[in-house]
C-alpha cells in the first residue's frame, strides 16, 4: 500500500499537508462566496460552470514514497483525498471526475 493510499483510506491529510488542506478549504469557501455574491453575467457563467464541471478547489501533493494525493473539495468544510501512484497519473484527474 502506498503512502497516498493510506491517507486516502483514512480520508485524513498527512501532517505535513495540513496547511495545504487548509488552503484548499479556504479556496472552496472563497469560491462559494464568489458564486453567492456574483450578479448578472458573472452569475450565469458560474452557474453554467457549476452545472457542467462543478465548483471545486484542489491541489496535488507528492509524498515521501513518490505517491501523490489530491486534496480536493466540492463543498465548504468538506475535504476529500484521492490517491495516485505518481504525478503523471494524478495530472490527468480533476475533481470534475468525482461528481
Amino acid at each position, binding site marked *: 500500500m502506498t503512502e497516498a493510499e493510506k491517507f486516502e483510506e483514512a480520508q485524513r491529510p498527512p501532517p505535513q499537508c495540513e496547511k495545504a488542506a487548509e488552503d484548499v478549504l479556504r479556496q472552496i469557501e472563497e469560491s462559494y462566496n464568489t458564486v453567492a455574491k*456574483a450578479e448578472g453575467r458573472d452569475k450565469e457563467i458560474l452557474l*453554467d460552470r457549476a452545472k457542467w464541471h462543478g465548483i471545486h*478547489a484542489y491541489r496535488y501533493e507528492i509524498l515521501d514514497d513518490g505517491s501523490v494525493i489530491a486534496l480536493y473539495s466540492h463543498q465548504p468544510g468538506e475535504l476529500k483525498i484521492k490517491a495516485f501512484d505518481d504525478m503523471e497519473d494524478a495530472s490527468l484527474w480533476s475533481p470534475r471526475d468525482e461528481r
Partner: protein
Amino acid sequence: MPIVATDIHFRLSGGAANSNQNAALGGAKSTTTDASASLFDDVTGAESAAGDTEYRGIYVSNEHGTLAYLAPRVWVSPDTPSPDTDADLALALEGVNVAMATIADENTAPASVTFANTAISYATGLTIPDIPAGQYKGVWLKRVVNAGAAAYADSFTVNVQGDTNP
C-alpha cells in the same frame, strides 16, 4: 506617470530566451515573448477522443519603471464556450519575483498549488500580491478536454487588472 496597460505583460515561462508557448512549463520568465498568443496548441481528434489535460506556466510582469502593481487579480474571460472543456487557474507557490517550479512535461501538474475554477471576472479573480516595479508573479493554467469532446472553435482568455498609484 501611473501604470498603464502597456506596462503590464503576460510573459512565458520556460527560460529567458523561450519563445515557444508549448515550452512554457515553468522555470525562468521569458524576456522575449508576450504570452498573449495561443498558449495551448490545438486539440487533435485523437486527443479529444481520449481526453486531454495540459498545463502552462506564465508570469504577470510589471514592467513599469518605478511603480508597484497593486493587488492585481487574474481571471479567465471569456470562458471556454464548449461544455466539454474547462480552464482552471492557480497562483504559483513561489513568491513575487521568484521563478516558478518546472514541470516534467505539458501533461504533468505542478505540485502544491491550489487550483480553482471560479475566477471568471475581476470581481471573482484570484488576488495576486502587489508586484513591485520590474518584478513578476507566476500563474499556472490547466486546460481540460473531456474524453469524447465534440469539435469546437474553443478558446479562453486570461486577464489581469490591478491598481496603480498616480
